């Protein structure tokens, strides 16, 4: 029994929810339920019984008390752009979304922070900070859709996290609704550091995949907009040479703000799409590199980047400080995943990390894993951080192809772990990578993580059935539903 039945929503509870959030904030019709059945992880789906969309912390807390009383579990959800199934249910229950919590509550220019509701879209936060000459650093590719609350849940990254670090380095505090419907202020503008002897509770909350509570408001640090920004488009005749150049830039301690790699198939898809970034058709791989800072610093770093790039075989380097030109080059990168829709109906985006000395090796593993299974692979890399996105095009209506995709993805993950890397760089474990957690962590490590979970959520109310692998029969009661398609790695993984 993979699924544990939960309570179902009574009419009186539905009325109680509507009284809190309004009729528009409670949806249980088939259309709404199907819209919330999955996220960016398309290999599995299950509908929530009800979707509730509170408008404030206070409403969210009251909603939680009603749902708890009804015996429903809750999946917190931002925009549903995640890639590992973290924002969809495993056994019915309620989805509490932040779609109606979109207010920027405060931007403090001198103190350099902003306080926002969790449903604020990533780019809207930066837009709100712009008049003060400030910006919010983490910039996931999905930033025109993804929410700050979702970014907190996944400790999201993005190209510029090479210089500025992922979400955890920018969150000063959160407002958290716990499983009793109580509201907690953790950290915040007046408590950036925990008091002496108190624990840093904000730290482990970031990246906890919605399993410790519902984050309703977030205080983030803002950074001054850099004086000068230069974008370099570096062209290579081989992906290997491009990877080696990036490894060399890291080893030589160069400090651009972003280092991205796109391979030939991705370039072709982007150029064939409406995005048309102007990436040349004669390159097997391009590195998209950004350098930020004072003008003299940008001059010096960009020159060094070009030198290292050419030393490793770059046949052309395009450099620009023009705002419109830069935007065009980046549009190709940010829209790369969408553009891949031209190649096949579905795209599996792997998200793995390797030490930055081993980029080329992992690309080779991904190439072999896909070639052996007749799969079409394209590569997008947050190369500066060692975060690889091998992307596999497929058609979810073809069960055999889906099986091969899952097998190839597992092989890539294993190779990363063996090389000293990890399962996920910015999208989390969710449903997809639960079994592989055992490759990285032992029983004591996982038990300690479960202790953290129980300290915040003793009853498994928040986002159950995610992240933790099933290690023994006694844990089946807490197990997620299996992905609806057979997992071919079952025997080779030796679980």
């Amino acid at each position, binding site marked *: 029994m993979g699924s544990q039945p939960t309570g179902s929503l009574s009419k009186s509870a539905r009325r109680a929810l509507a009284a809190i959030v309004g009729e528009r904030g409670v949806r249980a019709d088939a259309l709404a339920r199907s819209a919330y059945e999955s996220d960016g992880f398309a290999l599995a789906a299950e509908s929530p019984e009800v979707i509730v969309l509170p408008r404030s912390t206070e409403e969210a807390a009251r909603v939680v008390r009603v749902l708890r009383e009804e015996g429903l579990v809750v999946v917190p959800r931002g925009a549903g752009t995640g890639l590992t199934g973290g924002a969809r249910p495993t056994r019915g229950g309620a989805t509490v979304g932040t779609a109606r919590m979109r207010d920027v509550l405060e931007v403090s220019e001198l103190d350099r922070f902003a306080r926002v509701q969790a449903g604020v879209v990533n780019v809207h936060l930066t837009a709100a900070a712009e008049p003060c000459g400030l910006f919010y650093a983490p910039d996931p590719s999905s930033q025109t859709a993804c929410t700050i609350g979702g970014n907190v849940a996944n400790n999201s990254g993005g190209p510029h996290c090479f210089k500025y670090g992922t979400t955890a380095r920018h969150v000063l505090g959160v407002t958290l609704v716990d499983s009793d419907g109580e509201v907690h202020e953790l950290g915040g503008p007046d408590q950036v550091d925990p008091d002496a002897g108190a624990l840093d509770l904000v*730290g482990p909350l970031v990246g906890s995949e919605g399993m410790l509570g519902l984050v309703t408001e977030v205080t983030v640090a803002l950074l001054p907009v850099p004086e000068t920004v230069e974008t370099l488009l570096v062209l290579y005749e081989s992906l290997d040479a491009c990877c080696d150049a990036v490894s060399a830039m890291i080893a030589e301690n160069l400090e651009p703000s972003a280092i991205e790699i796109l391979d030939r198939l991705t370039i072709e898809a982007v150029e064939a799409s409406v995005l048309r970034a102007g990436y040349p058709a004669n390159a097997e791989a391009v590195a998209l590199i950004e350098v930020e800072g004072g003008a003299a610093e940008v001059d010096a770093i960009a020159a060094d980047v070009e030198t290292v790039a050419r030393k490793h075989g770059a046949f052309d380097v395009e450099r620009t400080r023009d705002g419109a030109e830069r935007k065009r080059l980046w549009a190709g990168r940010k829209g790369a995943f969408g553009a891949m829709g031209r190649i096949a109906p579905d795209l599996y985006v792997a998200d793995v990390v390797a030490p930055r000395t081993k980029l080329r090796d992992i690309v080779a593993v991904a190439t072999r894993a896909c070639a052996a299974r007749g799969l079409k692979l394209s590569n997008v890399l947050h190369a500066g951080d060692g975060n690889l996105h091998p992307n596999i095009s497929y058609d979810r209506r073809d069960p055999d192809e889906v099986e091969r995709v899952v097998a190839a993805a597992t092989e890539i993950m294993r190779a990363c772990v063996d090389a000293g890397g990890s399962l996920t760089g910015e999208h*989390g474990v969710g449903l997809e990578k639960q079994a592989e957690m055992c490759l990285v962590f032992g029983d004591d490590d996982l038990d*300690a993580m479960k202790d953290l979970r129980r300290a915040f959520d003793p009853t498994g109310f928040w986002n159950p059935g995610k992240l933790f692998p099933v290690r023994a029969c006694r844990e089946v009661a807490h197990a997620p539903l299996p992905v609806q398609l057979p997992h071919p790695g079952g025997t080779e993984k030796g679980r």
Partner: protein
Amino acid sequence: MNAPLRPESIAEIVEAVRAARADRARLVPVGAGTALTVLRPDAEGARTLDLAGLARGATDGVVEYARGDGTITLHAGARVGDVARAVRAGGHRLTPLLPARDEAATIGGVLGAGASGPDRVALGPLRHHVLGLTFVDGTGRVARSGGRLVKNVTGFDLHRLLVGAHGTLGAVLEVSLRLFPAPEEEVLYALETDGARSAATIALELFGARQPLPRYLFVRGPRVFAGLAGRRAQVERDARALVDRGLRRVEQGEDAAARAAADGSTPPGPVWSFGVRPSRCSSLMDALADAGASLVDALVEPGLARVVLRADALPDGSAVDLAAVRATGARVLSAPPEVRVGGASTAPLFERRLRAAFDPDGVFGVPARDVPASRARAAGSAPR
């Protein structure tokens, strides 16, 4: 007091923790003992768990220095000074920068204290650069979270709980840190003013001006210090902006500026340290004027100004008026060892449950909390 325990392996540490738990004894993990404030080994019935021996058998306590990847993995007993020297040879810089007198501090101790250096204004606090760690909790369980990678979101980040926990919850055994490129050029500038209040005002102006972006920014008594680091051409250009504001260069030579910043920004001896929004920093300093404004040190960074008082140099009869301090929105970040004020968790429920899970019998203790303000007031005249 009982004799200190000096384990030399993880197995010996686990053994010590299990024995302490069975005996209902308390352990206080210590490194070099340079920053004992919140938990003290001389507390009744406590035994010191000296973790400095954990570096033995490895060069400078280094488990792996992945130079090409910009990361380092260390035994808890590794000495910060040794590590800083080791990575300097590879073109890297370790944060936090610690003053020369604390070079013997161990990395485990620095993590437990949650210490940061004067480069925090540019690089952020130490806790942002901990990539993963291994610890032993109060049940003797050895657990690991994170990893050795600069980007990684696999599993819950337990390591963030341990940083700044002052050795409660568990003892750090091994840690991986992100390193930073050593700057091509680094300089430190200073300006003498008529007092700490004026110096802080200038520091806040520099912070608000945003150009240049300082690597160091702190106040020491009546002097304000601003440091620059990065590419030579940029540092030279930015330095002119500091000179235009009347600051003068104080140090030169390789790493001299960084060392001077580390020494200058961290007063020796016991301190009071308060945190407040930068925009309220001046109000806080006014509230502390009674305690002798000339003794005030301050550091400014995004979202947080820290104001530091040397507890051993408060004028006789003066005191820290905690009520006035708190009225400005400030919080007590740390207090002298003989005073217990900090530790007011904003989420006591979660904290209590965490301590119950990781340290059910209190082997690693719980920090003392919230003494009455009257006792705190007495601290100013307490002889040391």
